[in-house]
């Protein structure tokens, strides 16, 4: 006679070392095998969208910072583009270039955290700290420019809060030269480490059709093998002027779309970002960093949707203006939120330890999931 068995519910989070913030996962376990995963979100809900309705257009920008706090620049970027479209204004060339450079630096900084924490979840502590060391260098560039290290409020409607620092160009070039070898070092230390490969290859395979059905975007989608990048697909700002590639997952060490592919796509993307910065940094034209816009931003009635390629995927802003000082409605399509939905699908049939590896490879930021 077979023994009666039952599954065990394990509550992972919201206070757990590797749920990347305050995500709560309800794991149904059979031994250590995952039968079911239920993510519970909302612990970090701060009513961004409702708040935005009570703020004037420029005042919303500090709030966008706080959604995806690892990629604040890019959140600003998406929002200001939306408002500028609503206003129908053009920003100076110089602003566009600086925005792209800042955005790409931010992408690198954000990927560094994503890669580092993915490694940390798997137990590699040292690469994590090396990556944070490098991220600090980028943050210092930001601090030099706008005075803040994490929540920048740098891109303003119609321009930037500050012009770049006179040393910025030189230091950025130094950073690029410094950073290339550290990617190689990282690859040697972590990416191609046998244990790391064992832990991530063939784990949490996300087939392309599932990814598309769930609306997954960003490196997670590209890891599954589709070269979809809004910078190319629906070009905004001046991304069409630069030459860069869209890395996709190829299943180098396992199946296409596994955790390792998602991880590796990020590494390759950092290299592409470096390329974009290299091209842009020498071409920054002279000029003003503020477009001539009225002091009180009061867009005409209308709606606008813009999307940008945030380090985590498609970040969309949908704004309805009723012609007042405050937006009537701001809706955010948060990539982390959408990407998290596929998580349960990925985990089924894996072990507890894999949940962590998969979660790390999807790279969510709870600030953005909950908003």
């Amino acid at each position: 006679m077979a023994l009666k068995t039952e599954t065990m519910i394990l509550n992972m989070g919201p206070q757990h070392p590797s749920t990347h913030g305050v995500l709560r996962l309800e794991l149904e376990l059979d031994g250590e095998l995952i039968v079911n995963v239920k993510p519970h979100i909302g612990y970090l809900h701060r009513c961004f969208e409702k708040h935005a309705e009570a703020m004037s257009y420029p005042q919303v920008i500090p709030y966008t910072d706080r959604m995806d706090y690892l990629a604040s620049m890019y959140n600003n970027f998406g929002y200001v583009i939306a408002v500028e479209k609503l206003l129908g204004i053009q920003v100076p060339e110089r602003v566009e270039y600086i925005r792209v450079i800042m955005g790409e630096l931010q992408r690198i900084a954000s990927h560094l955290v994503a890669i580092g924490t993915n490694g940390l979840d798997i137990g590699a502590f040292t690469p994590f700290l090396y990556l944070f060391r490098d991220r600090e260098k980028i943050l210092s560039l930001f601090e030099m420019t706008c005075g803040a290290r994490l929540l920048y409020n740098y891109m303003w409607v119609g321009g930037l809060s500050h012009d770049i620092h006179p040393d910025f160009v030189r230091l950025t070039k130094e950073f690029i030269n410094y950073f290339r070898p550290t990617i190689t070092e990282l690859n040697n230390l972590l990416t191609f480490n046998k244990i790391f490969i064992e832990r991530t290859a063939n784990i949490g395979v996300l087939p392309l059709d599932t990814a598309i059905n769930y609306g997954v975007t960003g490196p997670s989608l590209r890891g599954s093998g589709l070269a979809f990048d809004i910078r190319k697909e629906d070009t905004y700002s001046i991304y069409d002027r630069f030459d860069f590639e869209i890395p996709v997952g190829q299943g180098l060490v396992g199946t296409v779309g596994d955790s390792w592919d998602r991880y590796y796509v990020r590494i390759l993307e950092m290299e592409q970002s470096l390329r974009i910065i290299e091209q842009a940094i020498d071409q920054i034209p002279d000029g003003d960093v503020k477009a001539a816009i009225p002091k009180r931003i009061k867009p005409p009635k209308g709606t606008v949707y813009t999307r940008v390629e945030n380090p985590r995927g498609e970040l969309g802003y949908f704004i309805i203006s009723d012609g007042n000082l405050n937006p009537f409605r701001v809706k955010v399509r948060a990539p982390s939120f959408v990407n998290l939905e596929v998580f349960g699908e990925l985990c089924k049939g894996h072990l507890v330890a894999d949940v962590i590896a998969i979660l790390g490879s999807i790279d969510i930021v709870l600030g953005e999931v909950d908003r």
Partner: protein
Amino acid sequence: MYQFLFNLSGSEIIATIFTAAVILVFILLFVLFAVWFERKVSAHMQDRLGPMRVGWHGVLQTIADFVKMLQKEDIIATEADRKLYTIAPVLVFTGSFAAYAAIPFSSKLLGSEVEVGIFYLLAVSSFVVAGILMAGWSSNNKYSLLGAMRSAAQIVSYEIPTALVVLSIVMLTGTLSLEKISQLQTAYFWNWNIFGGPEFSLAKFLLIPFMFVGFLIIYISTLAEVNRTPFDIPEAESELVAGYFTEYCGMKWAMFMLSEYANMFAVSAIVTILFFGGYQSPFGYLGNSIGAEWLVPFEQAFWFIAKGIFFVFVQMWLRWTLPRLRVDQLMTVCWKYLIPYAFLNLIIVGFISLL
């Protein structure tokens, strides 16, 4: 040492207590050092500084932490099984402490000359499993339970490759006594087992690669036995928070830490004795050459501890380099890789030693 004290005092009890006390003091001092050392090693490997405030480069940090730990409230969860919960840390520590009884620190300084020392060590060191299981079960916490289960499976499995490698050494030396194994590898470092043992013959040179493989296997499996990265699955902090000691705090938690570090040295000692000449100096003794015979045991103790600490350092080095394996991969490494290799190694070493 026991014998010496016994002769001196004429009482078994005094001799036993005193010997035990010396070893306990050694363990405590070692743990104080090792915790600090691990922090410093990890810090410098990660381009950090580590503790710097308490004493020179933070040497007294562990003592400060210890004092802090003493002051902590001893919390026992309501649903925990109080008796087992309290016994577990003691049991775990006893296991690792008992192992020290048979370790020859030098020709004079050893707790007890057990003839079957190496088997005693292997047996006692798996005593820890019982404590860990108890801790995991009694905490009444799912994470602890998972950690304990993993740990039990892991420690039991990894006994096998360890034992197989030990067997090959036993075959080569023909003794089970740790003291004798150490004695055999006397004089210079080319007499160590890793270089094929003291006998100078063709077999010695043939043995070197296999001894090296044996060393790798036993080092890896002892690493797993003491739950160090890449095998720190029972306490994988990113998955199980802290594994079987999640619920522990204060001094009870310190006991687990104590035994973890004590175990680190114990397994390094085993590796040292089996392959790296135990307490033997690599270049002969200062005491012998200047005619001060009494100096030799101290020199031996120095070499033994130095070697032990070197292997502890390698353990730390690995820990701060590698990610950790998954449960099933851990078993794969053990059953599919280490055990076949160890077997093959055993057979080959057997044939060569017949030569």
